[in-house]
């Protein structure tokens, strides 16, 4: 930084005084990744379809959805046909990772302004790992979102909303959120 021209140094001082850039987005993305991780963990216990997808993942499977800068991540490990949210440091090299190039891109997706397939098409999100596992995780994520999100939000997040009756949706969503609360009460969040 000391080697930077005076005008550049002055500009950096101004930017530092403004506070961290994308502060709100950073906070929101961290919270959403935390929430999605726990919801997937709960859904993999409650929902048969998600459990089947998880069961078909290879043994020792680990997954991470993260922002490339390292500012936020959700990390999951497979145990039988269930997923468990763990601290990112526990899995430094996940078998499969979905990486957002920038916090702003993660914010677009996690605030339901851009669907995951659209983010992939727009090169905002890169996939590192085997595609068969990536497809299973995407289907699990989609199913979980279709269950826990109100329909008017889910249609923005997904390419297509699966046909789920209102009674089934309410029943499964209640059990997923209930499970989430039970898990939070059982052990402090990682």
């Amino acid at each position, binding site marked *: 930084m000391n080697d930077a021209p005076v005008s550049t140094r002055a500009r950096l001082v101004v930017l530092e005084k403004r506070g961290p850039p994308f502060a709100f987005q950073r906070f929101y993305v961290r919270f959403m990744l935390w929430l999605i991780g726990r919801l997937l963990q709960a859904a993999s216990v409650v929902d048969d379809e998600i459990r089947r997808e998880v069961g078909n993942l290879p043994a020792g499977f680990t997954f991470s959805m993260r922002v490339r800068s390292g500012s936020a991540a959700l990390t999951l490990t497979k145990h039988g046909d269930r997923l468990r949210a763990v601290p990112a440091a526990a899995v430094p090299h996940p078998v499969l990772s979905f990486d957002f190039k920038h916090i702003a891109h993660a914010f*677009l997706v996690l605030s339901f302004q851009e669907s995951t397939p659209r983010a992939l*098409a*727009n090169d905002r999100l*890169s996939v590192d790992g085997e595609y068969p596992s990536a*497809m299973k995780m995407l289907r699990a994520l989609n199913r979980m979102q279709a269950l826990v999100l109100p329909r008017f939000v889910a249609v923005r997040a997904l390419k297509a909303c699966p046909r789920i009756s209102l009674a089934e949706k309410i029943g499964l969503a209640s059990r997923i959120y209930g499970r989430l609360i039970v898990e939070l009460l059982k052990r402090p969040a990682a």
Partner: protein
Amino acid sequence: MTKHYFEFSCPVKMVAGFRALEHISFELDTRGASRPLIVSDKGVVGAGLVDTVLAAIATGGGQVGPIFDDVPPDSSMEAVRAGAARYLDSGCDAIIAVGGGSVMDTAKALNILATEGGVDLRQFAGYNNLKRPLKPFIAIPTTAGTGSEVTAISVIKDREEGVKTFYCSPFLLPDVAVLDPRMTLKLPPMITAATAMDALTHAVEAYTCLARNPMSDAYAEAAVRRISQWLVPVLLRPDEAEGRLALAEAAAMAGIAFSNSPVGLVHALAHTIGAMYGVHHGAANSIFLPFVLEFNLPGSRQEIGALLLSLAGPEVYAATPASRRAEEAIDRIMALKDKAHELCGLPRTLAETGSVPREDLPRIARTALDDGTVVMNPVDVTYEGALRVLERAW
């Protein structure tokens, strides 16, 4: 504020047309290379195509290193290692690949080892794991379909691990792609048709799938126009050099299009029956293309309809009501398949391949859902949807 966004890249220099091969010595010279390793396979060498390339380089004052022609039909780790050893032992300084998709894939992977010095190739597997430019690389396709000469991906069979490994990096792209009609004049009619339909599928899927963008659209439209104009004339007159060149250009343009707007459900199904029953990739794409377009109508009617202009020309496009253009475009592709079947026996249905049992369709549908290309399909693909397409294609 608009959220429109796309990325597009194609840094490959295209050297295309009459006496294109004679430009190779200049291209080598400008890259400081004087001893290229020739990578090919025995079929291409036996057909005399490598000799044609060598003669063109020699008459241009250039020189070449050894010829490595041990590339198998399905590119393998062993072939990559053997080719790299030949490169390093012979003091080569560039690579010229002469062949189809397998030769191109081998040459790309071989270039990693040639540059990095014989380390374990697997450490570079996956996306963007190369961090510096590789050795000068010239690609000369001998088929007009895969578009490998302009794609940044290499797929290598790893027998030790029992998997096919992907390598994807912009550094894998050739520096130069040479399209010369002499390279495809001797292609048998069946391969000509299958590879052209492969290129047509690349272009149509690039144009109709989620990552389409203004640049990929331009390449896709131009590719579709050339293929619909020249495939039948070339099947009728295989030594039609102008048509051969047009198909080679179309394959490269379709390759550029789908490198920047990835393919969808047609490829997911074609990959699956290719892996399970060995159905030729181009033939499989040809079978599925119109049926997947029917399936995709709810999500991309407008894009499919717009393709009618490139498929049938302005008169037909103008005479067709806007509400009917998508169906007419699909009918045109069906008609092209029928003509190719009549002229060279290219299968139109899964039944005509003679190798896909009908009772396996549910298994194929389930397996295809795990293919990564499904993500880019404009319409969400479920098991029931994939099975419906397979039943139609039967």
